[in-house]
Protein backbone atom coordinates (compact mmCIF):
# COMPACT_ATOMS: atom_id res chain seq x y z
CA UNK A 1 0.00 0.00 0.00
CA UNK A 2 2.83 2.34 0.93
CA UNK A 3 4.58 1.51 -2.33
CA UNK A 4 1.35 2.20 -4.26
CA UNK A 5 1.14 5.58 -2.57
CA UNK A 6 4.71 6.40 -3.55
CA UNK A 7 3.96 5.44 -7.16
CA UNK A 8 0.87 7.64 -7.19
CA UNK A 9 2.82 10.56 -5.71
CA UNK A 10 5.45 10.18 -8.38
CA UNK A 11 2.76 10.13 -11.09
CA UNK A 12 1.23 13.28 -9.63
CA UNK A 13 4.63 14.93 -9.70
CA UNK A 14 4.99 14.06 -13.40
CA UNK A 15 1.49 15.34 -14.14
CA UNK A 16 2.25 18.66 -12.48
CA UNK A 17 5.52 18.92 -14.34
CA UNK A 18 3.91 18.25 -17.71
CA UNK A 19 1.30 20.90 -16.98
CA UNK A 20 4.07 23.40 -16.31
CA UNK A 21 5.52 22.59 -19.73
CA UNK A 22 2.45 24.14 -21.30
CA UNK A 23 3.48 27.74 -21.29
CA UNK A 24 1.22 30.66 -21.93
CA UNK A 25 3.32 31.41 -25.01
CA UNK A 26 2.59 28.08 -26.63
CA UNK A 27 -1.10 28.42 -25.85
CA UNK A 28 -1.23 31.85 -27.48
CA UNK A 29 0.59 30.63 -30.58
CA UNK A 30 -1.76 27.66 -30.88
CA UNK A 31 -4.84 29.84 -30.52
CA UNK A 32 -3.53 32.45 -32.96
CA UNK A 33 -3.00 29.78 -35.63
CA UNK A 34 -6.75 29.94 -36.24
CA UNK A 35 -6.43 33.41 -37.76
CA UNK A 36 -4.56 31.79 -40.68
CA UNK A 37 -7.61 29.82 -41.70
CA UNK A 38 -8.27 30.12 -45.42
CA UNK A 39 -11.72 29.60 -46.83
CA UNK A 40 -11.89 29.78 -50.61
CA UNK A 41 -8.26 29.48 -51.58
CA UNK A 42 -7.01 26.42 -53.42
CA UNK A 43 -4.41 24.38 -51.51
CA UNK A 44 -1.11 23.23 -52.97
CA UNK A 45 0.21 20.25 -51.01
CA UNK A 46 3.86 19.48 -50.32
CA UNK A 47 4.90 16.81 -52.82
CA UNK A 48 8.65 16.74 -52.32
CA UNK A 49 11.07 17.94 -49.67
CA UNK A 50 14.79 17.19 -49.81
CA UNK A 51 14.86 17.53 -46.03
CA UNK A 52 12.42 14.65 -45.55
CA UNK A 53 13.48 11.02 -45.66
CA UNK A 54 14.96 8.62 -43.19
CA UNK A 55 18.50 8.80 -44.54
CA UNK A 56 18.74 12.31 -43.17
CA UNK A 57 18.74 10.81 -39.67
CA UNK A 58 22.11 9.21 -40.12
CA UNK A 59 23.81 12.05 -41.95
CA UNK A 60 27.30 12.59 -40.70
CA UNK A 61 28.65 15.90 -39.50
CA UNK A 62 30.90 16.16 -42.56
CA UNK A 63 27.87 16.60 -44.84
CA UNK A 64 28.09 19.85 -46.82
CA UNK A 65 25.32 22.34 -46.31
CA UNK A 66 23.23 22.30 -49.45
CA UNK A 67 20.08 24.02 -50.68
CA UNK A 68 16.74 22.60 -49.61
CA UNK A 69 14.55 21.69 -52.58
CA UNK A 70 10.79 21.68 -52.09
CA UNK A 71 7.81 21.16 -54.42
CA UNK A 72 4.14 21.92 -53.94
CA UNK A 73 1.47 20.52 -56.23
CA UNK A 74 -2.25 20.65 -56.80
CA UNK A 75 -4.99 22.09 -59.00
CA UNK A 76 -2.88 21.46 -62.14
CA UNK A 77 -0.10 23.71 -60.90
CA UNK A 78 3.20 22.99 -59.26
CA UNK A 79 5.67 25.28 -57.52
CA UNK A 80 9.32 24.33 -57.21
CA UNK A 81 11.41 26.07 -54.57
CA UNK A 82 15.08 26.15 -53.78
CA UNK A 83 15.91 27.57 -50.38
CA UNK A 84 19.28 28.39 -48.99
CA UNK A 85 20.18 30.60 -46.06
CA UNK A 86 17.00 32.65 -46.19
CA UNK A 87 17.14 33.11 -49.95
CA UNK A 88 14.49 31.57 -52.17
CA UNK A 89 14.31 30.94 -55.91
CA UNK A 90 11.02 29.59 -57.16
CA UNK A 91 9.22 28.60 -60.33
CA UNK A 92 5.55 28.12 -61.10
CA UNK A 93 4.82 25.35 -63.60
CA UNK A 94 3.36 25.63 -66.16
CA UNK A 95 5.08 29.03 -66.46
CA UNK A 96 2.79 32.01 -66.03
CA UNK A 97 3.01 35.48 -64.59
CA UNK A 98 1.39 36.85 -61.48
CA UNK A 99 2.49 37.57 -57.94
CA UNK A 100 3.51 35.63 -54.89
CA UNK A 101 3.23 36.66 -51.26
CA UNK A 102 5.18 35.05 -48.44
CA UNK A 103 3.07 34.69 -45.31
CA UNK A 104 4.57 34.02 -41.91
CA UNK A 105 2.98 34.36 -38.48
CA UNK A 106 6.19 35.94 -37.21
CA UNK A 107 6.73 38.73 -39.73
CA UNK A 108 5.17 41.07 -42.25
CA UNK A 109 4.10 39.79 -45.67
CA UNK A 110 6.43 40.17 -48.63
CA UNK A 111 5.06 40.24 -52.18
CA UNK A 112 7.12 39.80 -55.36
CA UNK A 113 6.30 39.50 -59.07
CA UNK A 114 6.26 36.19 -60.91
CA UNK A 115 7.63 36.64 -64.44
CA UNK A 116 6.25 35.13 -67.69
CA UNK A 117 8.37 32.01 -67.24
CA UNK A 118 6.91 31.54 -63.75
CA UNK A 119 10.16 32.51 -62.03
CA UNK A 120 10.41 34.50 -58.83
CA UNK A 121 12.99 35.28 -56.21
CA UNK A 122 12.78 36.31 -52.58
CA UNK A 123 15.96 37.64 -51.05
CA UNK A 124 15.03 37.84 -47.40
CA UNK A 125 12.80 34.99 -46.43
CA UNK A 126 11.04 35.27 -43.04
CA UNK A 127 11.62 32.39 -40.60
CA UNK A 128 9.51 29.24 -40.93
CA UNK A 129 6.72 28.31 -40.64
CA UNK A 130 5.83 30.14 -43.82
CA UNK A 131 3.63 29.63 -46.84
CA UNK A 132 3.20 31.17 -50.26
CA UNK A 133 0.02 32.71 -51.54
CA UNK A 134 -0.01 32.84 -55.32
CA UNK A 135 -2.20 35.03 -57.46
CA UNK A 136 -2.11 33.75 -61.01
CA UNK A 137 -4.52 35.16 -63.57
CA UNK A 138 -7.47 35.48 -61.23
CA UNK A 139 -6.78 32.28 -59.28
CA UNK A 140 -5.61 32.37 -55.69
CA UNK A 141 -3.62 29.37 -54.45
CA UNK A 142 -1.99 28.80 -51.08
CA UNK A 143 0.76 26.32 -50.36
CA UNK A 144 0.74 24.10 -47.29
CA UNK A 145 2.86 25.47 -44.43
CA UNK A 146 6.55 24.97 -44.96
CA UNK A 147 8.37 24.20 -41.74
CA UNK A 148 11.96 23.52 -40.83
CA UNK A 149 14.95 25.65 -41.78
CA UNK A 150 14.45 27.91 -44.83
Amino acid at each position, binding site marked *: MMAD*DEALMSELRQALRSREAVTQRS*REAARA*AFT*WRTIDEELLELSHDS*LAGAQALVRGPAEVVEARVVSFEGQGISVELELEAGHLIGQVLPGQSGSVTVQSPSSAQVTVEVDDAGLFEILELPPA*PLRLRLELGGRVLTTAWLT*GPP
Partner: protein
Amino acid sequence: MSQANAVAPLVEAARSGDADAWDALVDRYLPLVTGLIARHRLKGADADDVNQSVWLRLVEHLGDLREPEALPGWLATTTRNECLRVLRGGRRSTPVDPQGATVLDVAVVESSWEEDLVRDQRHQALLEALRQLPEARRELLMLLLTDPPIPYTEISDRLGIPVGSIGPTRARALAQLRRSPALAALADDDAMASRR
Protein backbone atom coordinates in the same frame (compact mmCIF):
# COMPACT_ATOMS: atom_id res chain seq x y z
CA MET B 1 -15.46 7.29 -24.25
CA SER B 2 -17.10 10.53 -23.18
CA GLN B 3 -14.12 12.74 -24.00
CA ALA B 4 -13.78 11.47 -27.56
CA ASN B 5 -17.47 11.94 -28.18
CA ALA B 6 -17.18 15.61 -27.44
CA VAL B 7 -14.38 16.16 -29.97
CA ALA B 8 -16.53 15.87 -33.09
CA PRO B 9 -18.78 18.89 -32.39
CA LEU B 10 -15.73 21.00 -31.53
CA VAL B 11 -14.01 20.07 -34.81
CA GLU B 12 -17.23 20.70 -36.69
CA ALA B 13 -17.69 24.13 -35.09
CA ALA B 14 -14.05 25.12 -35.65
CA ARG B 15 -14.41 24.16 -39.31
CA SER B 16 -17.22 26.64 -39.71
CA GLY B 17 -15.12 29.38 -38.12
CA ASP B 18 -15.99 29.18 -34.41
CA ALA B 19 -12.90 30.52 -32.62
CA ASP B 20 -14.18 29.42 -29.19
CA ALA B 21 -14.38 25.84 -30.41
CA TRP B 22 -10.83 26.17 -31.71
CA ASP B 23 -9.64 27.47 -28.33
CA ALA B 24 -11.33 24.51 -26.64
CA LEU B 25 -9.50 22.11 -28.97
CA VAL B 26 -6.23 23.87 -28.18
CA ASP B 27 -6.87 23.62 -24.42
CA ARG B 28 -7.62 19.94 -24.69
CA TYR B 29 -4.69 18.87 -26.86
CA LEU B 30 -1.95 21.39 -26.15
CA PRO B 31 -0.51 19.24 -23.33
CA LEU B 32 -0.24 16.31 -25.76
CA VAL B 33 1.65 18.44 -28.31
CA THR B 34 3.98 20.23 -25.89
CA GLY B 35 4.62 16.98 -23.99
CA LEU B 36 5.73 15.26 -27.19
CA ILE B 37 7.94 18.21 -28.12
CA ALA B 38 9.59 18.07 -24.69
CA ARG B 39 10.20 14.34 -25.11
CA HIS B 40 12.07 15.07 -28.35
CA ARG B 41 14.28 17.26 -26.16
CA LEU B 42 13.42 20.38 -28.11
CA LYS B 43 13.40 23.65 -26.20
CA GLY B 44 13.09 27.38 -26.70
CA ALA B 45 12.71 28.64 -30.25
CA ASP B 46 12.77 25.12 -31.72
CA ALA B 47 9.95 23.99 -29.45
CA ASP B 48 7.96 27.13 -30.27
CA ASP B 49 8.46 26.52 -33.99
CA VAL B 50 7.17 22.98 -33.82
CA ASN B 51 4.19 23.92 -31.67
CA GLN B 52 3.20 26.74 -34.01
CA SER B 53 3.67 24.56 -37.10
CA VAL B 54 1.49 21.77 -35.71
CA TRP B 55 -1.44 24.09 -35.02
CA LEU B 56 -1.09 25.88 -38.35
CA ARG B 57 -1.25 22.48 -40.05
CA LEU B 58 -4.30 21.55 -38.07
CA VAL B 59 -6.07 24.73 -39.18
CA GLU B 60 -5.11 23.85 -42.75
CA HIS B 61 -6.46 20.29 -42.42
CA LEU B 62 -9.56 20.83 -40.29
CA GLY B 63 -11.66 20.59 -43.42
CA ASP B 64 -10.39 17.19 -44.50
CA LEU B 65 -10.16 15.47 -41.12
CA ARG B 66 -12.75 12.78 -41.81
CA GLU B 67 -12.86 11.23 -38.35
CA PRO B 68 -12.68 13.85 -35.63
CA GLU B 69 -11.96 11.03 -33.14
CA ALA B 70 -8.68 10.49 -34.98
CA LEU B 71 -7.55 14.01 -34.05
CA PRO B 72 -5.24 13.04 -31.15
CA GLY B 73 -3.46 10.52 -33.36
CA TRP B 74 -3.18 13.04 -36.18
CA LEU B 75 -1.74 15.64 -33.79
CA ALA B 76 0.76 13.16 -32.33
CA THR B 77 1.98 12.08 -35.77
CA THR B 78 2.23 15.64 -37.03
CA THR B 79 4.08 16.77 -33.91
CA ARG B 80 6.57 13.93 -34.20
CA ASN B 81 7.17 14.67 -37.88
CA GLU B 82 7.75 18.35 -37.16
CA CYS B 83 10.15 17.50 -34.33
CA LEU B 84 12.14 15.21 -36.60
CA ARG B 85 12.26 17.89 -39.29
CA VAL B 86 13.75 20.35 -36.82
CA LEU B 87 16.20 17.73 -35.52
CA ARG B 88 17.33 16.89 -39.06
CA GLY B 89 17.53 20.50 -40.12
CA GLY B 90 19.61 21.42 -37.10
CA ARG B 91 21.98 18.53 -37.63
CA ARG B 92 23.03 19.80 -41.07
CA SER B 93 24.87 22.77 -39.71
CA THR B 94 25.64 21.67 -36.14
CA PRO B 95 28.42 19.10 -35.83
CA VAL B 96 27.35 16.44 -33.36
CA ASP B 97 28.46 12.95 -32.52
CA PRO B 98 26.55 11.06 -35.23
CA GLN B 99 26.38 7.84 -33.27
CA GLY B 100 25.10 9.41 -30.09
CA ALA B 101 22.53 11.44 -31.98
CA THR B 102 21.27 8.45 -33.92
CA VAL B 103 20.74 6.43 -30.78
CA LEU B 104 18.77 9.29 -29.29
CA ASP B 105 16.60 9.69 -32.38
CA VAL B 106 15.81 6.01 -32.59
CA ALA B 107 14.79 5.90 -28.94
CA VAL B 108 12.49 8.86 -29.44
CA VAL B 109 10.97 7.54 -32.66
CA GLU B 110 10.22 4.15 -31.17
CA SER B 111 7.96 5.37 -28.39
CA SER B 112 4.48 5.40 -29.83
CA TRP B 113 2.08 8.29 -29.69
CA GLU B 114 -0.60 5.99 -28.26
CA GLU B 115 1.48 5.63 -25.12
CA ASP B 116 1.90 9.40 -25.02
CA LEU B 117 -1.82 9.90 -25.35
CA VAL B 118 -2.65 7.36 -22.65
CA ARG B 119 -0.15 8.94 -20.29
CA ASP B 120 -1.39 12.42 -21.14
CA GLN B 121 -4.99 11.45 -20.42
CA ARG B 122 -3.92 9.86 -17.17
CA HIS B 123 -2.05 13.06 -16.22
CA GLN B 124 -5.07 15.20 -17.01
CA ALA B 125 -7.31 12.90 -14.99
CA LEU B 126 -4.88 13.04 -12.06
CA LEU B 127 -4.82 16.84 -12.13
CA GLU B 128 -8.61 16.89 -12.34
CA ALA B 129 -8.82 14.47 -9.38
CA LEU B 130 -6.45 16.74 -7.47
CA ARG B 131 -8.72 19.70 -8.16
CA GLN B 132 -11.71 17.72 -6.86
CA LEU B 133 -10.09 17.03 -3.47
CA PRO B 134 -11.16 19.08 -0.46
CA GLU B 135 -8.97 22.15 -0.10
CA ALA B 136 -7.03 21.02 2.99
CA ARG B 137 -6.09 17.65 1.49
CA ARG B 138 -5.14 19.16 -1.85
CA GLU B 139 -2.98 21.73 -0.07
CA LEU B 140 -1.16 19.02 1.86
CA LEU B 141 -0.51 16.98 -1.29
CA MET B 142 0.73 20.03 -3.17
CA LEU B 143 3.22 20.78 -0.39
CA LEU B 144 4.38 17.15 -0.36
CA LEU B 145 4.78 17.25 -4.16
CA THR B 146 6.97 20.34 -4.10
CA ASP B 147 10.39 19.87 -5.60
CA PRO B 148 12.79 20.17 -3.77
CA PRO B 149 10.87 18.57 -0.87
CA ILE B 150 9.72 20.71 2.05
CA PRO B 151 10.54 19.29 5.51
CA TYR B 152 7.59 17.84 7.47
CA THR B 153 8.22 20.33 10.28
CA GLU B 154 7.69 23.22 7.89
CA ILE B 155 4.56 21.62 6.39
CA SER B 156 3.28 21.13 9.94
CA ASP B 157 3.85 24.84 10.65
CA ARG B 158 2.24 26.02 7.44
CA LEU B 159 -0.89 23.91 7.72
CA GLY B 160 -1.16 23.91 11.51
CA ILE B 161 -1.29 20.12 11.76
CA PRO B 162 0.96 17.82 13.87
CA VAL B 163 3.93 16.24 12.09
CA GLY B 164 2.60 12.81 13.11
CA SER B 165 -0.65 13.29 11.22
CA ILE B 166 0.97 14.21 7.89
CA GLY B 167 1.57 10.58 6.88
CA PRO B 168 -1.93 9.30 7.73
CA THR B 169 -3.57 12.37 6.15
CA ARG B 170 -1.55 11.83 3.01
CA ALA B 171 -2.71 8.20 2.86
CA ARG B 172 -6.36 9.27 3.23
CA ALA B 173 -5.96 12.02 0.60
CA LEU B 174 -4.47 9.57 -1.88
CA ALA B 175 -7.20 7.02 -1.18
CA GLN B 176 -9.80 9.70 -1.86
CA LEU B 177 -7.94 10.73 -5.01
CA ARG B 178 -8.12 7.15 -6.32
CA ARG B 179 -11.89 7.11 -5.81
CA SER B 180 -12.46 10.46 -7.58
CA PRO B 181 -14.86 10.48 -10.57
CA ALA B 182 -12.10 11.77 -12.88
CA LEU B 183 -9.93 8.71 -12.29
CA ALA B 184 -12.88 6.33 -12.15
CA ALA B 185 -13.98 7.46 -15.63
CA LEU B 186 -10.51 6.75 -16.95
CA ALA B 187 -10.45 3.31 -15.31
CA ASP B 188 -13.77 2.50 -17.04
CA ASP B 189 -12.29 3.50 -20.38
CA ASP B 190 -9.26 1.31 -19.76
CA ALA B 191 -11.47 -1.63 -18.86
CA MET B 192 -13.45 -1.11 -22.07
CA ALA B 193 -10.30 -0.79 -24.13
CA SER B 194 -8.89 -4.04 -22.73
CA ARG B 195 -12.11 -5.89 -23.51
CA ARG B 196 -11.98 -4.84 -27.18
